[in-house]
């Protein structure tokens, strides 16, 4: 089964049809998606700025991550679910949209960056937890995370514009 056959099958499901044809399902899911995405990017930037040594300096890194990252993950789950439902309504169109594909490349980069940080420099966090300026590897991870997530939002906005001119 090739990819488009699978995408067509996704679009044909009753839930995808309802989102595509229903009066307010699509805008409602968009609202949830926007709310969730702003919370993902906003909350992760709090961690990024701490790693960069630019904000929350009086708090240990582990304290910042401890209070912020649970919010990030809950918001990420909401963004992923609402995003998957939005995708299902027009799966073929989205899958062939360049901005949509670039957006997912940046999400993958953000994920890879997080994994490298988690299994790399974060292993020694006990040594620099309270340092105002974390080690270079941690600062690089913070800077990359900020850039990747800004790119994700930018591409996401352009997806809307490239599909529905004027509607945004």
């Amino acid at each position, binding site marked *: 089964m090739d990819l488009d056959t699978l995408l067509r099958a996704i679009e044909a499901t009753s839930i995808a049809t309802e989102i595509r044809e229903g009066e307010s399902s699509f805008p409602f899911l968009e*609202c949830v998606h926007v709310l969730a995405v*702003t919370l993902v990017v*906003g*909350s992760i930037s709090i961690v990024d700025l701490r790693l960069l040594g630019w904000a929350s300096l009086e708090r240990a890194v582990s304290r910042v991550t401890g*209070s912020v990252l*649970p919010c990030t993950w809950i918001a990420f789950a909401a963004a992923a679910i609402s995003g998957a439902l939005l995708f299902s309504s027009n799966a073929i169109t989205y899958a062939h949209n360049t901005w949509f594909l670039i957006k997912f490349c940046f999400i993958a980069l953000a994920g890879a960056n997080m994994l490298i940080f988690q299994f790399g420099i974060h292993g020694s966090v006990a040594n620099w937890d309270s340092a105002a300026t974390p080690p270079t590897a941690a600062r690089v991870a913070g800077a990359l995370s900020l850039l990747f997530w800004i790119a994700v939002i930018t591409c996401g*906005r352009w997806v809307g*514009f490239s599909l529905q001119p004027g509607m945004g």
Partner: protein
Amino acid sequence: MKTKALLDFCDSIDATALSQTIQSIKWVVPAVQTVHILAIAAVMSSILMINLRLLGIAGTDQTVARVAGRFGPVVWWSLPLLLLTGATLIIGEPARSLANDFFQLKMFLLVSVIALTVYFQRPLKTNPNFWDGRSGALRVIAVLSLILWSGIIFAGRWIAYL
């Protein structure tokens, strides 16, 4: 609300050179919207951190005044950026925004939540312990704030659909 005066005002904005420029360069609106959303991300995450502290859910190792001191300024510094980008979007598409019911609802919610935020933050300036022992009031403030800000996002997104 769609009075004749409002629609005339929209038409007069529409006729300006600035509005025509924004309309004719295709990337301006999505670019400005992107900045607008990034500023909203800063506001929403800061608001969430403050409100989770007020609800006693996160950041409880810090005082209310300290959490408000860390994240409050992010909200206030983001607002001018939101007004600037929002105004650009209005100038580019005046009738679609100003005369839109959801835009008007959004502005009403925005004014309400700014008033609520000032009500919460102001006493902390003179007395960091002002809210100590008033956890019931803090919970009401937190829930109201979260509802209002979420409503602003919903209304903002719905502008495109009316």
